[in-house]
Each structure stands twice: as C-alpha cells, then as structure tokens.
C-alpha cells in the first residue's frame, strides 16, 4: 500500500450515494398540507412547521378583521337606497341588448319595406289612400281621386275666385300649374293632368291609369264639387264655407262676402294665375249620378 493511498477507514466514510432530498414533497402530501388535513405528527421532517404556519394563516378571524362590519352594512344600505343593487333573477344585459337589437332591426326593415313599396306603387290601397289624404293636407296642388266619399278633387283653377280651394279650405294652387285656365268645357280631368304634369306622374303608370280612369268619370263628381248644395254643405253634412275668420284650414285669402251665394266655389281666393278664366268657369257643373262610379272606380 502506497503512502499516498487513503486509509481504509477513510474510504469507508465516503458516501456511496447522495442523500435523498430531506424536503421532498409529493402531490398527496402537498394537498393534505394545503387542505389542513395533515396532523403535525404525521408531517414529514421539515413540514411540521409549515403545517403549523398554514394553520395559523387560515385561523379564525380576529376582532380587528371583523371591525368593518358596520361600515360594510352602511354601504349596502346606501346602495339599496340608490337602487343600484341588481335584483336577483333579473335578465342579463346581453339578453336586453339582443331584444333591443331585434326591435331596431324590425323597425328598420319595416321602414325600408314601406319606402320601397311606396316607391314602386305596390302599397295596399287603404295605405295608399291614407297616405294621399295625409299628403293632400300638406300640398293640395296634387288633387287625387279618392275612394273616400267625403274627398273630391279640387275644381279647376279657372273657376273664379273659388278655384284652388276645396270645401275644406285647401290652399290655392301656385303659379305654373299647366292647363290651369281650362274651363269646364275642356275636361274635368284637368286637376289630375295638372298633377301629373307637375309631379312627373309618368313615374307611376299604375297610379296614372287609376287617376285617368277616375278623372274620366269625374266630370259629374267635379261638378258636384263645384256645385253647392242648397243647404251649403258638401254632401257629407259639413259646411262648405270656411270659419268666420276666413282662413279655414288652407291658406286662402278672405272669403267672398257673399260666400253663401257662391256655393261650390270654396273659400279661398283666386290662385296666383287663376285669373282670366272664361266666363263659364264659374258656372256650376251639374251633378250626376256617376259619382258613385268614381268613388268605386279603383
């Protein structure tokens, strides 16, 4: 044995294998530690203190930790008074948002459909008639035949001082209306022609056809418009004369002093270009029994 050789006793003291990790921790042990299910006497070396520490961290509440109870309840009361607490069971915001979105889409769809139908002239008759009535109150320069018995086309603008006015005090026609001076001898469909000329009525052929047909039958009806009844009403029991202030619902001028004697001529004054008509323009047109056919011509 050489001098530099180690002693056999020293060789025996050398470790044959490294020591296992004294703090090794498997999953089960860790879960038991975290759950507080590991008794101290069963804890592996080095983890008994950890178990005690974790138990202390999860210990019962201290008085200091519970000191803010009244303040928290005061906050709850304040929130309840302000109505900000959301009742249990109320719908989620997403659901309300979806409902609102559906309503908005439905409204937009109906509006678009209505506009498209109105543009193409495919609106149902009742709706179209209602729209005409509404529009007629805005602009009576476009008289349209109506299926409503109480509504009649306006008389020719050349019919004297009452032209441009209806029995309901409609406005006089503005200047530039074609064929506005035509008398009763020309045709009684001139209001419709004027309307077509003014509004480019060729856009709606169907409507024009209806209008023309109605106008063809309208001679008697128009005359009825222009004729006043002996009782001064328009046939529906309404007074054809304007209110005492002379304005009616239209924008006409002062009514003639003897408005009662000018039956069937409305209440408004002459149109801007309505003068110069033939002497026959103010002549009442006889009322015929074909009014019914006009009313139902559509």
């Amino acid at each position, binding site marked *: 044995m050489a001098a530099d050789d180690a002693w056999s006793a020293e060789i025996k003291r050398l470790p044959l294998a490294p020591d296992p990790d004294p*703090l090794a*921790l498997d*999953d089960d042990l*860790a879960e038991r*530690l*975290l759950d*507080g299910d590991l008794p101290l006497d069963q804890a592996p070396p*080095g*983890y008994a*203190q*950890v178990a*005690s*520490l*974790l*138990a*202390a*961290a*999860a*210990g019962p*509440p*201290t008085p200091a*930790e*519970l000191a*803010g*109870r009244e*303040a*928290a*309840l005061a*906050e*709850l*009361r304040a*929130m*309840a008074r302000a109505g*900000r*607490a*959301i*009742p*249990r*069971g*109320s719908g*989620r915001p997403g659901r309300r948002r979806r409902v609102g979105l559906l309503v908005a889409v439905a409204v937009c769809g109906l509006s678009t459909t209505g506009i498209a139908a109105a543009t193409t002239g495919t609106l149902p008759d009742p709706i179209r008639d209602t729209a005409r009535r509404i529009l007629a109150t805005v602009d009576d320069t476009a008289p349209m035949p109506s299926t409503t018995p109480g509504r009649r086309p306006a008389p020719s603008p050349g019919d004297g001082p009452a032209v441009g006015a209806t029995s309901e005090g409609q406005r006089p026609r503005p200047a530039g209306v074609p064929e506005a001076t035509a008398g009763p001898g020309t045709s009684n469909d001139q209001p419709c022609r004027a309307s077509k000329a003014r509004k480019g009525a060729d856009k709606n052929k169907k409507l024009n056809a209806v209008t023309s047909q109605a106008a063809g039958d309208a001679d008697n009806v128009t005359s009825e418009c222009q004729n006043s009844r002996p009782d001064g009403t328009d046939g529906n029991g309404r007074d054809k004369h304007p209110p005492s202030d002379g304005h009616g619902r239209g924008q006409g001028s002062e009514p003639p002093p003897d408005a009662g004697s000018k039956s069937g001529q409305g209440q408004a004054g002459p149109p801007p270009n309505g003068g110069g008509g033939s002497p026959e323009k103010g002549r009442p047109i006889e009322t015929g029994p074909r009014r019914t056919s006009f009313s139902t011509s559509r």
Partner: protein
Amino acid sequence: MIGPGFPAVLTAAAGGDEDAFGVLWHDLQPRLLRYFKVIAPGAAEDLASETWLAVIRAVGRFQGDEAAFRAWVFTIARHKARDGWRRAARRPVQELPATSLAEPPAPDDPAATVLEDASTQAALALIATLPAGQAEAVVLRVVAGLEVTQVAEIMDKRPNTVRVLTHRGLRRLAERLGADHGPRARRAV
C-alpha cells in the same frame, strides 16, 4: 363555510337583507383581508372595501354554490388588486430614508413576543416573502380555501402551473422555517 344554508343566505343578501349580507361578509372578509395583506400589503382595507362594493352591485346576477361564490368574490378581489397595482404604478414613488424602515426583530427581541400573539399575521408575513406567484397560489389555496382549478382560473394559469407554484412555495417555506426563521417562526406559529 356557511354550509347548506348558503343558497337562502345568498338570495336574501341579493334582496338587500342586511343580516344575510352580514353572514356573507363575516365569512369572507377575514379571508379577503389576509389575501390582500399577502398580495397587496398596505392597501388591504381599501381593496377589501372596493371588492365588497363590487359584490353588492353584482350579487343579484350571481348563480352558483358556495364554492363558486367564494371563487367569484376572489376573482373580483384580484381584479381590484390589479387595479390597485396600476394606480400605484402611476403614482410617483417617494423614496424613504433607510433608517425609517423597521428592522426585522432579533430572535430575542420583545417584539417577537408580540409577533407570537399575532401568529396569523406572522404566518401571512412569512408567506408574503415568497415570490408573488407562489405566495398568491398558497394563500388562495389555504386562506381562501379554493381548489386548484378555481385558483388557476383566478390567476389565469393552468392547474399544473398552480400545483408547481404551491409546491415550490411550500418547500421554500419549509426551508425558511428550518433555517433562518426556524426557531422564531416555530414560536410564532
């Protein structure tokens, strides 16, 4: 834990019943404070108040059992803590002189005796010395009493990651308790 009566308590609290809300608060407020003392020391009281305000506003929409409610509350708490961190990051930092910082007590310091009486606070302080992820995982598991999957959702991590974090945290605690802070911590806890 509230136990089988939790659904009734939750319903009553959502309806504005103060007693029922007090039961919820009594069960969770200490856990919230301890959680905040670990992850956001210095702002625990304020963050707990903000958390309860959020709970009051939204408790009517919550649906679930007690464990889910607890996880929901701590999810709100973590969001509040993150908001607090952002606010703190925007605030200018004023450095304090080193002498104003409290020195750790010596093993035979009388303050250690006080610390023994406040064993919970000492334990939380020791957990707070862990790396942030490990400390949060440990406190959510131990103090909040949440499962691994719930902690993973709250911390936005995978469950295996949470397991690794807790294992490392426990091992580090064991190392500290057995070495530097061993005798004192043993007394403290």
